[in-house]
């Protein structure tokens, strides 16, 4: 069915809103990547089977005139609490069942659906408290969900449900009540800043594209979320694809673009299929494609799958990749807004930025600015992972402190370990320590602390993490992903990696820290693109905050966290050693001495930690650490 005008869209939406309001009893099964990997589809199928077997009246999709007694079962997108998946939620009670297994389904149907009782053993428990309702769970209580508002509430594969929660109202307003200038002004007034990392004012970017005289113009969505430890954009694309598409459509209407491209990482197959499905549905309804809702505006959507190059997250590399070339950044200016995709004016924003647009257009800039600090308004999604109790996807108002995120939402460190640092902003970011826990998370505060929000990966690390090894890990990543075009990045990151490898292998030299600092300075000042310029950040920030750890590796040949293998001394346990001399004979450097039939000893100054003695000892008396 094609909608020919605004009236028809309003009428259709009204029908679906009415239908959804009648859906009172619901079983919501999370089918985000996380829960699906933990087996949520098996649970969905089992529940569907049991419903059939028990002759329960149940709708599997939003129907136009449901009975209020009927049960609705819905596959939803990611609710963020991946660690506890598979998740099943029961409405209207709001009960959340965690770590559900196929064997639990009988009890859910019998007790909860037929009997209206809670299955307590499936409820979330923390420190002895049972949390039946989702909204009371600390992980959710402190969140403020805007972009993730519908994630876990609606079926991401159903445009009907998106319409039923007010979907495409903002597009309607943009098309029929606002001029392109007014749209751009509204977005500018809202102070919305790019969520991809840089925090560039979104409205300013749009106004620059709008001003260009050249056509066609393009809207490009950067869904190449490559930062290891980040999965916010993935969840939005998978769980609420229409929200992002609506934002892109509004950008196209505002700037006069006619073609829209979405560049998605190849590692996100589910996101690709859900986006393709959403585009097809919207085209069928006439919400995108030719003559949108009977107007003379046409916008065509395309999906491009990435092919595994982190550098393609950089604007000019990304557009190059869509054009079918190697993803290599070019010198700027000219900027993407003037010469972007196919050398034409291009609006390039990331997934989360576009996902914020519809709310701003619908509710106005003033409404948006009330959330969070004035210069970084709105909320931000973070992928919280690492050694916290509750890993998952969260959204909090900008300006929330790190402490609230790690302790209130994340539930503190796993296994009662001590917090050491949090790595924020991935390979381009830095780390924040205990002292910075009360710092508000927003673009400007983080910049001052030598870190960046980046796309929003937050990896919490406990006392057992070696910061030098973390720096090496990120440098290894950037070095591999360097496209090789400019010398500072291609050669510089390699040299920095070599030095870091040397240090974690116990071969660090006097002057290495200073050399790393010098290289960092040169690379960040001279590299061509953002990848190179920010590549040294993890090193700079760990040297700044954990210099003593570097020094312990270099001068004392010791890894304080006990992570770097080559720096863990090998010792002979005198209570187990029988003094057989086998180890001493096998040692290639003659580091082991002793007298027959009494415990032998390893000279740590001579030992090269090859481990030959460990394997030869017949009494398992030799161990690392």
């Amino acid at each position: 069915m094609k909608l020919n005008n605004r009236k028809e869209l309003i009428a259709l939406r009204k029908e679906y809103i009415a239908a959804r309001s009648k859906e009172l009893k619901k079983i919501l099964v999370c089918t985000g990547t996380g829960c699906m990997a933990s087996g949520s589809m098996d649970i969905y199928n089992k529940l569907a089977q049991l419903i059939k077997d028990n002759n329960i009246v149940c709708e599997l999709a939003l129907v136009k005139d449901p009975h209020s007694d009927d049960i609705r079962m819905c596959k939803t997108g990611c609710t963020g609490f991946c660690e506890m998946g598979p998740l099943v939620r029961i409405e209207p009670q709001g009960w959340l069942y965690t770590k559900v297994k196929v064997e639990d389904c009988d009890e859910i149907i019998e007790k909860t659906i037929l009997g209206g009782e809670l299955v307590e053993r499936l409820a979330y428990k923390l420190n002895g408290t049972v949390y039946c309702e989702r909204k009371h769970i600390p992980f959710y209580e402190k969140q403020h969900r805007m972009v993730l508002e519908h994630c876990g509430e609606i079926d991401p594969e159903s445009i009907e449900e998106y319409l039923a929660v007010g979907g495409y109202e903002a597009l309607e307003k943009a098309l029929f009540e606002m001029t392109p200038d007014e749209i751009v002004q509204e977005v500018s007034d809202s102070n919305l800043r790019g969520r991809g990392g840089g925090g560039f004012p979104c409205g300013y970017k749009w106004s620059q594209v709008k001003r260009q005289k050249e056509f066609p113009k393009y809207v490009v969505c950067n869904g190449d979320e490559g930062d290891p430890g980040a999965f916010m954009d993935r969840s939005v694309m998978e769980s609420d694809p229409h929200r992002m598409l609506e934002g892109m459509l509004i950008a196209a209407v505002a700037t006069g673009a006619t073609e829209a491209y979405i560049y998605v990482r190849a590692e996100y197959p589910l996101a690709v299929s859900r986006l393709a499905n959403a585009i097809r549905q919207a085209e069928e309804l006439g919400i995108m494609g030719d003559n949108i809702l009977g107007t003379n505006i046409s916008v065509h959507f395309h999906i491009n799958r990435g092919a595994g190059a982190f550098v393609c997250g950089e604007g000019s590399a990304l557009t190059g990749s869509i054009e079918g070339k190697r993803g290599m950044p070019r010198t700027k200016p000219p900027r993407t807004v003037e010469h972007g995709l196919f050398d034409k004016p291009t609006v390039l924003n990331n997934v989360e930025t576009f996902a914020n647009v519809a709310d701003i257009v619908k509710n106005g800039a003033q409404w948006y600015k009330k959330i969070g600090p004035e210069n970084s308004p709105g909320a931000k999604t973070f992928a919280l992972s690492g050694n916290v109790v509750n890993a998952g996807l969260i959204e909090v108002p900008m300006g929330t402190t790190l402490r609230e995120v790690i302790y209130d939402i994340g539930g503190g460190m796993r296994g009662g370990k001590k917090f050491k640092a949090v790595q924020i902003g991935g390979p381009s970011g830095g780390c924040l320590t205990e002292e910075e826990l009360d710092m508000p998370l927003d673009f400007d505060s983080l910049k001052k602390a030598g870190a960046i929000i980046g796309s929003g990966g937050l990896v919490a690390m406990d006392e057992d993490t070696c910061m030098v090894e973390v720096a090496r890990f990120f440098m290894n990543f950037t070095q591999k992903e360097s496209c090789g075009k400019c010398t500072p990045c291609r050669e510089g990151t390699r040299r920095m990696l070599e030095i870091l490898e040397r240090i974690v292998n116990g071969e660090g030299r006097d002057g290495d820290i200073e050399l790393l600092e010098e290289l960092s300075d040169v690379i960040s000042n001279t590299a061509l693109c953002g990848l190179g310029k920010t590549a040294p950040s993890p090193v700079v920030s760990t040297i700044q905050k954990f210099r003593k750890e570097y020094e312990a590796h270099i001068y004392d040949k010791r890894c304080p966290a006990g992570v770097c293998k080559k720096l863990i001394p090998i010792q002979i346990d005198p209570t187990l050693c029988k003094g057989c001399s086998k180890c001493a004979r096998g040692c290639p450097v003659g580091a082991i001495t002793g007298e027959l039939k009494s415990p032998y000893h390893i000279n740590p100054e001579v030992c090269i930690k090859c481990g030959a003695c460990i394997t030869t000892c017949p009494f398992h008396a030799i161990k690392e650490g």
Partner: protein
Amino acid sequence: MSKTFDTAVVDRVIDQLGAKPSSTIAILQAVQEEYHYLPQETIPYIAAKIGVSEAQLYGVATFYENFSLEPKGKYIIKVCDGTACHVRKSTPILKALRDELGLSESKKTTDDLNFTVETVACLGACGLAPAMMVNDKVYPSMTPEKAIQLLNELKESL
């Protein structure tokens, strides 16, 4: 008729995606899906069809991590080594799989072309770290033991 690829298959892919330079990556992806790798001889063939130089196409094929000019296994196991998986000990999982299959950093595919083991920078399943992906399916909270068990199940299904 070429030995390593069927021109009819490649022609169909090009027809579907459009014989133009901007379809380059999509075409290479589709051909790779068909053969599990990019047979060397497809490069000049595709280049001529879509109107780019052989050098440029070869450049694209070797630039992106996902393209392989070497045959890959029927099951491609990607062990995630993203930050979250790394701090939750993904390295022993990789080692266990490599040891079991006799593979290494440089030798990624078994001789019988059944398995390829490689690392991936991030699967975006950080809440389930350490994670692993076999073809398009993500497996959560892995341990070396679970990985070997999965491997044995895959072997049986061959």
